[in-house]
């Protein structure tokens, strides 16, 4: 007689063994080192750090290796590790004016204090496959270097602010909540929203931001400024009574200048969107700032037109890819019991219907 499926334990062991083999691939091909991933797949490492909410390039590279290049799986590994770490407190807000700039562009002004710095960007490359990379080559020749500029670089928004052309930056309210330590409660304030967007899925936010450009809640964004570089992280030590620098992180900051508002009593002003993401993550920072602006409709007295990117609850509830992929994929797990209940119900409904028809 057939006995209900047994042997889950051995099946798991065998599956894990096969997975380990598949991860390694052909053993005749040299193994990838974590250093290689960190140095040569930097943008993947950045994404895993950003959405994993943990700035650690080595661990992110390890996670990518372990996840066989599946970035959401790697993000998940980092989150599961991060959640076990103690939280000591919040750093001082990073001062991006004092950023050690690698890239800084403004789409609103041709030239401005601090200048336009293209930096390492794909923007003006021709997307032609470089077959030379397929052959193992020498390191490329060193890029020309300019003198470092030690001066702080002022924000474009500050320049607009001085003239009263843009709404004043809304002040935060004390210590921001920590999404990883307190349940998300709605409505969320802007700081918490930005936190959720920063660790949200890049693809989801890209599409949401894109939808606002195509008329689903238009916000007419100009990139006031996009800057990428290293910033110092300072932590206030109660014992010392002052803040000390505990390290530096690379971030991408995007500030958008958006369609203005005004009324009979208040003259027109531009409005702001903001995005800050770990590492060089331009697409993500841009998307966050567009979605941020779109979600601010209530503060700015705009109409809710039913656009998905205006809907805080919709956006925040679905932006997290670790949550989304988990729930999506869990339908692979057995559902015998519930399905049996449905089978029993549908058979009964059908048989009742048939009997009814026969009786007629």
């Amino acid at each position, binding site marked *: 007689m057939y006995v209900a499926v047994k042997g889950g334990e051995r099946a*798991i062991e065998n599956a894990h063994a096969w997975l380990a083999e598949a991860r390694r691939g052909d053993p005749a091909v040299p193994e990838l080192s974590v250093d290689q991933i960190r140095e040569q797949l930097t943008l993947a490492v950045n994404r895993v750090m950003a959405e994993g909410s943990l700035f650690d390039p080595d661990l992110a590279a390890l996670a990518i290796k372990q996840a066989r290049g599946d970035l959401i799986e790697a993000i998940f590994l980092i989150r*599961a590790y991060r959640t076990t770490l103690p939280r000591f407190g919040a750093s001082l807000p990073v001062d991006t004016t004092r950023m050690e700039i690698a890239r800084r562009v403004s789409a609103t002004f041709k030239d401005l204090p601090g200048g336009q710095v293209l930096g390492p960007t794909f923007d003006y490359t021709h997307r032609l496959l470089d077959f030379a990379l397929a052959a193992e080559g020498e390191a490329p020749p060193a890029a020309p270097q300019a003198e470092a500029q030690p001066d702080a670089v002022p924000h474009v928004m500050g320049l607009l602010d001085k003239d009263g052309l843009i709404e004043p930056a809304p002040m935060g309210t004390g210590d921001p909540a920590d999404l990883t*330590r307190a349940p998300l409660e709605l409505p969320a304030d802007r700081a918490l929203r930005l936190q959720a967007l920063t660790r949200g899925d890049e693809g989801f936010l890209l599409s949401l931001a894109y939808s606002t450009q195509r008329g689903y809640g238009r916000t007419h964004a100009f990139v006031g400024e996009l800057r990428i570089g290293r910033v110092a992280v300072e932590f206030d030590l109660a014992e010392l009574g002052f803040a000390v620098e505990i390290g530096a992180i690379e971030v991408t900051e995007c500030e958008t200048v958006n369609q203005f508002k005004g009324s009979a009593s208040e003259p027109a002003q531009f409005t702001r969107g903001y995005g800050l993401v770990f590492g060089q993550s331009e697409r993500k920072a841009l998307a966050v700032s567009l979605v941020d602006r779109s979600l601010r409709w209530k503060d700015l007295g705009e109409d809710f037109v039913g656009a998905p990117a205006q809907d805080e609850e919709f956006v925040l509830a679905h932006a997290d890819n670790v949550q989304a992929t988990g729930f999506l994929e869990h339908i692979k797990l057995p559902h*015998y019991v519930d399905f*049996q209940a449905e089978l029993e119900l549908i058979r009964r409904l059908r048989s009742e219907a048939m009997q009814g028809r026969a009786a007629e």
Partner: protein
Amino acid sequence: MTKDVYNFAYLDEDTKRMIRRAILKAVAIPGYQVPFASREMPMPYGWGTGGVQVTAACLVPEDRLKVIDQGADDTTNAVSIRRFFQRTSGVATTERTTEATVIQTRHRIPEEPLSEEQILVFQVPIPEPLRFLEPRETETRRMHELEDYGLMHVKLYEDIARHGTIATSYAYPVKVEGRYVMDPSPIPKFDNPKLSGNPALLLFGAGREQRIYAVPPYSDVVSLDFEDHPFVASKTDHACAICGATGSYLDEVITDDLGGRVFVCSDTDYCRGRTEQEIGAVEAAE
């Protein structure tokens, strides 16, 4: 992952304290969904992260843990979660319902009656019973606050109008202690009567949705229905092909591609217990 690197039962003590506070609140307000700061766990959302966190917060070294999925100890996810706690807490495990102090379950309540010494932890995918009637959390929380459950009754009524019966076979909504409408997690409605007056503490954890709720021991739990369409805890009308039980919930197993099928107990421990008893009785008689 070793015991040296991670705390007992994986979560750090601060997190456990936070979860225990949520559990206490849940017990104090039966059926009410308490928000809690759910952590990322090393298994995916949808695999039982809420249940795992509740179990981790409940476990003490003296506990004896049983983990089931679809009623069975041997399903892959049950094996995986049991192993996780073996590795991170070192507590004893068992497959016997009666021997366990903590039971984590997905989709079933064991057939064997539970006792006051036991905690049953449910894995919950969507804790909000009103979610598929109203997608907004802000709105459903308001509905619970105002005890505004009209929409649910309309839904059940529409079922009857369309199908002649309430067409919900699992995750069948209940009302706890006459106040909160609660999702009992996707257990078949066959299991619903076991929720009421149960001597064990029933805890529900939803990780992705960040909610914990509870049915304290001996609580009154009523499956929603109408006077002229009373709730019926139904199951398929067969006996178990292994132990012959007629009163236990059955899984359907397809045996060939010619329409052959048998029905077996979904609760593997219950089935084994009955089979062993029968063998014992036969041996005693011989």
